[in-house]
């Protein structure tokens, strides 16, 4: 299913923060993980993911570090800072409240 781009843009920070709250990841891994969990329903485009990662890094929610993997390749891993953890929790709460309200309106409209 193709989601509206604007809808995805609004939730990208939350998705990144939540995925990184589980473990450190690099950009390609975040995309792979989002594809796997959504069962191919959506994937981040690079044009959305990397600028969003840099924006969150600038805000102090993420820290980044180049690490060399087993194949000898260098990859830039992102992890959450303490502020990032708080932001992840707050954004998640906001999301649940928002979807609850939207669902309430939609269920009334459909009934």
């Amino acid at each position: 299913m193709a989601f509206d781009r604007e809808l995805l843009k609004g939730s990208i920070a939350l998705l990144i923060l939540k995925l990184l709250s589980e473990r450190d990841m690099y950009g390609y891994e975040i995309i792979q993980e989002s594809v796997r969990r959504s069962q191919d329903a959506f994937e981040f485009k690079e044009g959305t993911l990397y600028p969003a990662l840099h924006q969150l890094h600038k805000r102090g929610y993420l820290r980044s570090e180049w690490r060399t993997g087993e194949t000898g390749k260098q990859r830039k891993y992102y992890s959450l800072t303490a502020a990032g953890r708080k932001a992840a929790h707050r954004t998640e709460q906001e999301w649940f409240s928002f979807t609850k309200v939207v669902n309430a309106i939609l269920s009334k409209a459909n009934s």
Partner: protein
Amino acid sequence: MVFIHESSECHTLEGQLVTHLDHIVSRVILLAKLPDNKHRREVAKELRAHLDDLGEESRSQGYDDEATARIVRIRFGDPHEVAAAFAFVYAPERWARRILQAAILVAVSTVAVGLVISTVQSIAAICTATSVLSTLRDIHHEVFGLAAIAAGYCSLYAGERLFPKSLARALLSSVTLGLSLAAVLAWLIPQHVALPLAAFTCAASGRLLQRVPIPFVWFAGTALPLLIAWMLFGRLLPGWQFPWLVWLGLTISCKALREIVRLFERGCVEDFA
């Protein structure tokens, strides 16, 4: 391309495909208007590693180089869009850097103009057997004039950089600054507004005529506005008894500013572009 080669130490992909991936990254870096080389290197390395992963994934599924290049291009998306998103993220840093660079240029230009004018006045004092100290004692009274020369020259230069394809727009930005300066000066020093304004106009028109590829034509750029100002206000203002001396100071200042701008472009133009 220097950013790409630095980042491609451990790639397993080869040949045309590598060139293709490098091209995508360099397009993004070229258009992303990142604030400095450190950011450019960082983003290039990160995107290159990502494209490598995409390429290797396609190759592991049995696609050849051509198909892999096509798949990577589609999955990565339009480099313009990626670059635009990066440009948006780093806009505050970019503007802060530009403002800092502009402030340094204006400060250096003002100091250079001050040095030129005081040198010209000193030489004139020596030639007329007047005390150099008494000539330079009041130079701080000319601070508005000195700053106006730097502002006039730099405003047109800034206009040229902001609107490289439209001289009319570049001039408009300079004229707008000139009018704003006139309003401020008319409020601050209503009796002495003519000299700084004339200096501003001379410096801006000097810069304008420096674009003409005929030697010495730009001398007229500093002379004409000064002549008009002298005819209108010259007799009313002190220090204008020797208009040729004012012109000489202005013209040498414009020459010095031209060299300063050239040096500035060599050092900063990449970040300004």
